[in-house]
């Protein structure tokens, strides 16, 4: 029982991070039908930005309040990563729109390789650690066998931040004219233009939002693990992409749900079976779900009344 609850907490924390990254994949796919292969590396980039900003704040500027530092780190990481997302869309993807379908995909792979190598060259190939940030832990209860269920402050911060930002983001997409324009472009780009929507601007915005949420994930990842390396874009990126497909690519709640499921499977598998096979487990579930539900858990069925 204690082990179960503990793994549940760990799994949800990890799943929140995957879910945040998955939204970027799902939104970009929804609006321009492109798998943004560089998105995992954008996440890695944001973790590095968070690391640098954190070190600058704490060692050079002497900020002692961790809460303040984290807030500033989060805002800076989101701003700079968004800027990156906006710029790559303009430089690497937009000129290829209307070209053959694979072109932007290949361009995204190029961006991914560029980013990973750029970070490797400028930051070095080794793991970059942060000084430990938030160490407090709440012991929820202690079992008879001495196994304590603990909820760390970190985990609370991660889950709360994810929930709050998802809430804001959900409001943005569902209730504002910005979000409406975005959904319109997703459903019928030409019609959206006929109604006065600036489609290019809306697509830019999608990349910006995706990058901003990836930056939240990057900051949380750094907070959770305390290290980051140039190669850390790949595996979380693939997992988040898997989460997006599992939830039904194009569906926002699906991305979050998929992220949580992948996070849970991974932690439970590691705890109860073998840690080596956790990724096999996650991807097997994906394969099984896709066999029975080809459009994912919350994906829309292909047939649409015309």
């Amino acid at each position, binding site marked *: 029982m204690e082990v179960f609850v503990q793994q549940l907490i760990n799994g949800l924390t990890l799943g929140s991070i995957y879910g945040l990254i998955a939204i970027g994949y799902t939104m970009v796919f929804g609006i321009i039908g492109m798998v943004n292969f560089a998105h995992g590396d954008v996440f890695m980039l944001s973790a590095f930005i968070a690391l640098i900003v954190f070190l600058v704040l704490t060692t050079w500027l002497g900020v002692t309040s961790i809460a303040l530092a984290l807030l500033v780190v989060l805002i800076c990481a989101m701003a700079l990563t968004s800027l990156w997302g906006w710029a790559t869309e303009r430089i690497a993807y937009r000129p290829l729109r209307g070209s053959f379908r694979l072109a932007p995909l290949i361009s995204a792979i190029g961006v991914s390789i560029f980013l990973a190598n750029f970070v490797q060259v400028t930051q070095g190939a080794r793991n970059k650690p942060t000084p430990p940030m938030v160490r407090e832990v709440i012991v929820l209860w202690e079992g008879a066998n001495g196994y304590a269920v603990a909820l760390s402050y970190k985990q609370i911060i991660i889950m709360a931040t994810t929930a709050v930002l998802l809430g804001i983001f959900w409001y943005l997409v569902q209730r504002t004219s910005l979000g409406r324009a975005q*959904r*319109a472009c997703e459903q019928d780009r*030409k019609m959206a233009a006929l109604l006065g929507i600036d489609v290019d601007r809306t697509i830019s915005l999608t990349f910006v939002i995706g990058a901003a949420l990836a930056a939240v994930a990057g900051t949380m990842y750094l907070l959770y693990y305390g290290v980051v390396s140039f190669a850390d874009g790949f595996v979380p990126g693939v997992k988040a992409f898997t989460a997006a497909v599992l939830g039904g690519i194009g569906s926002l709640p699906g991305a979050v749900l998929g992220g949580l499921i992948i996070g849970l499977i991974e932690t439970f598998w590691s705890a109860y079976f073998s840690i080596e096979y956790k990724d096999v487990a996650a991807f097997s579930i994906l394969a099984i779900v896709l066999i029975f539900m080809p459009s994912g858990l919350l994906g829309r069925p292909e047939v649409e009344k015309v």
Partner: protein
Amino acid sequence: MSVGGINVLVDETRAIQDGKRAPLLSVRGVKTYYGNIIALKGVDLDVHEGEIVTLIGANGAGKSTLMMTIFGSPRAREGRITYAGQDITRVPTHHIARMSIAQSPEGRRIFPRMTVYENLQMGASVNGGTHFKEDLDRVCDLFPRLRERLYQRGGTMSGGEQQMLAIARALMSRPRLLMLDEPSLGLAPLIVKQIFSVVKELNERDGMTVFLVEQNAYHALKLAHRGYVMVTGTITMTGTGRELLENPQVQAAYLEGGRH
């Protein structure tokens, strides 16, 4: 005519010289291509303020292509399109949409995963939500069916309901020029009648200018002040609605058996 000051003046002068007002929409020598295939082979057409103008023609004549070319998508490769005295031939589509022209395009193009309400909000996006409530009431009075179904998803509406929604969405921007591409397509005769009477009402009561593409030539020509006939990318005939209705060639090609 609040936009494009100088152009307006120039056209106004020309109109006075011509002895009549400049058209609200004027299409001159427009050629449109799909790749290397020519779809419009030099089209000339005018729509004056306050008119209902209809364009009829066989399948594949290029009617929808002309509607979309006016909105710059696809773009005219040659020729000139002016609206309210401004040259809009090279203006981006979403800017044209903000010049108080609205289109209900071929195939209706309702956003399927948005509610009726949200579809109407999309129609109002050019005026940023001012007087939205008022306009919503107005279009719901025109099509009471929409009021009953405000929170239904667009994609689950019936064909006729979608058509009403497409027209209502176009009206939400308070257009000066309303362009309708086959509003009667696939609809029951009673609904066709209703839609045509709405168009007439908008034109007579609100002075809205209407440019209408129709297969239903008999009804369209009866409703319109003027009409054009298009054959494979060229305008072959023009005249008042009545003239075209009585023209033997038009009768032979577009009206036979198609009355009512």
